[in-house]
């Protein structure tokens, strides 16, 4: 019998659940597979509908983690298996080596001497990074990472020599951690649906067809362009942008469910474009615009009233090369009497949906439904997008609820 709680996933939901449970007096282990906490929210430029940067919400939670001794967190860590039952789960965790020590909070010197460049996953390949890097400027923990998989022996020596003594630690190796916990909160979240699977949209064929998450990075001040929205092909600011809604969502061949956030994300991204260039023509191709609740509906109305905004009811099912260099043509049937149309745009944004992480990387011992969402059980409590596709606000609420459920599992057994 253990009264500790394990939270799998250190995104917005996992971090919230961890601090909520810890502040109720329980010991919490937080396990994150990336090298930083914050998950997808850390990659966003702004929240909808308030349009404030996500760092504020995250920083408050990071501060709560830092000041609470009941929270132990692991980054670059994978849960390898879960066994046992409510009250006494046995969990095995693999913690990958980070290659640096906690005092390594900057690595400019190491970056300068490293030659290898790999696509930066934080920016979805829109920029490159070196094998020694800070995941992103606001990363928590604020500690650099040595990418041991993409670095040669000579390069390590050069980096080690360039960096202050004691910052690089190549002696680290993968570490197994076994935990006994009373309850598990699964907050493994989501990943953007792989756009290359949408064969008719030919994502790989066009540089200027990007995903909505790439758009977040392009618009973000910490992103590859310093927040200037530019086409990947030539760095030009797009004069027209087409949004392809339901790219993978509500589609039995891909994600059978509505991803809930993509309509709002597109409406939000229109404000990014309009802020930088009010003349930018925005085309939104949709099946239905889903702006749930009064606040979101109001936001939708506000966007609709803007100038040079076009909503076309019809799904884009083909993308052709445009006449202008770098441009593309979105093909759709305007079902409200417009006929089959080709709309040329400078850049297209695929509103790719949220695929639960469980769909492709399930954890042995956790049960998932056919879409990859976690099936709740006594002692195993999903929250956030591991449970169902939801926005950040609802993720926070579901995380708090999950913390309560986990505490109940333990207190029921203790009494």
């Amino acid at each position, binding site marked *: 019998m253990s009264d500790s709680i394990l939270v799998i996933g250190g995104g917005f939901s996992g971090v919230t659940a961890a601090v909520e449970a810890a502040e109720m007096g329980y010991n919490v282990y937080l396990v994150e597979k990336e090298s930083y906490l914050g998950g997808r929210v850390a990659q966003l430029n702004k929240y909808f509908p308030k349009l404030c940067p996500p760092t504020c919400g995250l920083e408050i939670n990071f501060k709560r983690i830092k000041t609470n001794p009941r929270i132990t967190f692991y980054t670059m860590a994978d849960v390898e298996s879960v066994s046992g039952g409510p009250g006494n789960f046995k969990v095995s965790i693999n913690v990958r080596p980070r290659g640096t020590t906690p005092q390594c909070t900057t690595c400019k010197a190491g970056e300068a001497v490293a030659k290898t460049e790999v696509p930066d996953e934080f920016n979805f390949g829109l920029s490159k990074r070196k094998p020694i890097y800070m995941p992103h400027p606001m990363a928590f923990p604020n500690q650099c990472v040595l990418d041991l998989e993409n670095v040669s022996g000579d390069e390590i020596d050069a980096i080690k020599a360039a960096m202050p003594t004691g910052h690089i630690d190549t002696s680290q190796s993968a570490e197994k951690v076994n935990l006994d916990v009373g309850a598990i909160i699964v907050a493994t979240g989501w990943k953007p649906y792989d756009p290359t699977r949408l064969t008719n949209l030919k994502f790989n064929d066009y540089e200027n067809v990007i995903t909505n998450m790439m758009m977040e990075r392009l618009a973000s001040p910490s992103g590859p362009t310093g927040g200037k929205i530019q086409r990947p092909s030539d760095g030009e600011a797009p004069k027209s942008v087409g949004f392809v809604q339901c790219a993978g969502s509500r589609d*039995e*061949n891909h994600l059978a469910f509505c991803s809930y956030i993509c309509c709002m994300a597109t409406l939000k991204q229109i404000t990014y474009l309009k802020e930088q260039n009010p003349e930018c023509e925005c085309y939104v191709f949709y099946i239905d615009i889903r702006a749930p609740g009064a606040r979101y509906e109001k936001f939708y109305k506000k966007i609709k009233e803007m100038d040079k905004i076009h909503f076309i009811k*019809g799904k884009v*099912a083909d993308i052709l090369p445009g006449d202008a260099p770098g441009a593309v043509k979105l093909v759709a049937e305007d079902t409200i009497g417009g006929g*089959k149309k080709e709309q040329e745009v400078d850049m297209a944004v695929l509103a790719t949906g949220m695929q639960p992480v469980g769909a492709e990387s399930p954890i042995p011992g956790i049960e998932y439904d056919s879409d990859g969402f976690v099936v709740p059980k006594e002692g195993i409590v999903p929250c956030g997008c591991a449970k169902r596709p939801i926005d950040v606000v609802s993720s926070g609420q579901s995380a708090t609820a999950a913390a309560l459920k986990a505490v109940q599992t333990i207190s029921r057994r203790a009494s």
Partner: protein
Amino acid sequence: MAETKKIQPDLSFIRGLMESGGDTVNRCYQCATCSVVCPLSTEERAFPRKEMLWAQWGLASKIAGDADVWLCHQCGDCSAYCPRDAKPGDVLGAIRLNAIKYYAEPKAIAETLSNRAGVLGTVIAAFVVWYIIAFLWSLHTGEHFPFPEGTVAYHKILTFVPIDVVVLPIVGLVVWASYKGITRFWNDIAKGSGIESYTGTAPKPAVGPFVSKYVVPAVQEILAHTRFEKCGETKERAKGHKLLLWSFIMLFIVTTSVFILNDVIYVPFLHKHFTPMPLWNPIKIFANIAAVMLVVGIWMIFQMRKEKTAEGVLQSSEQDWILIWLIFAVGVTGILAELLRLMNIAGLAYPVYILHLATVVTLFLAVPFSKFGHLLYRTTAYVYQRYEDDMKAGKAGFGMEKDVIPPAEQAEEAPEDQKQEESKE
């Protein structure tokens, strides 16, 4: 507010559609992926999204007046990309089967030929009737029945006289039913696309220009299969179909030449039979090539449909299989009859020949009454599409047409047309 219009769904139409292979129609949520991925759907004629909506709402008359249904060759691309698994390709297939039944007259024949038992029964009945006629004819000719003596020659059991006496009335029925069906279909689609009938604002087209401007190009396109070959998922199907169509045309030429040579020239004037032809006769060589093409073509269609049905790319209804098997039976009995005759095995040759006649009659009868009817309605739709395009461009006035305007002036006119269209919107 726009004028309100009360929609009256035809529930029996929806039910009929769902029973004949269109059971997925209600899954559609109108995203229009289908209209975009369809390689045959164009800017002006986007389908099958609108047909899915009309079918869901039970707008039977809207669908009857829609030629686009017949421009689909059921490649299955729409079904493959459909996010709801609503299978628009299959729904359109079901709509076409229902349309053939709707235009068929008398309906009883269409009902009989729409299921396996009915078709089998028709073939058996025809087989028995042919034997009765052969028996009666043997009383007149004095040949042995059921196996005439001597070398096998099929005119010994049935000459062209009894055959023509039976077949010509059937030809009459088929031609009449086809004519009725086509004209009703034409009126419906003309009404559907908002073109007045000939008696209305549009003058009646003269046969000559009508044939040369619309029928000939349509038939040329069908012979070349240009549209069918654009079909994505089931591109291969077009190959077998092309082979089959060409074999039918060749066999039609053979039958007509033999009819003229034998029934009109040889027997009445030379008092001898033109058939059986020796194997070196050019007509015979031509006929044998066509027969092989027919069997190979239908076999390719069969294999392709089997494969694609198993893969779930398209659904196949009873009617699809019936037509394939009937054509296959015609080809196989025809080739067997020839081989058995050459081998001089009277005991098998004559029954197989009679069976061949029975299948041929059934297949021929099936033209306006079964899935075979697609040859009538699809061809009509191909012709109509050209006619409609001209009508809408103001070029099909037959005598008043504007298409004699030199190209330079035409170019000036174009923007005006566009303006008009825009103002309508």
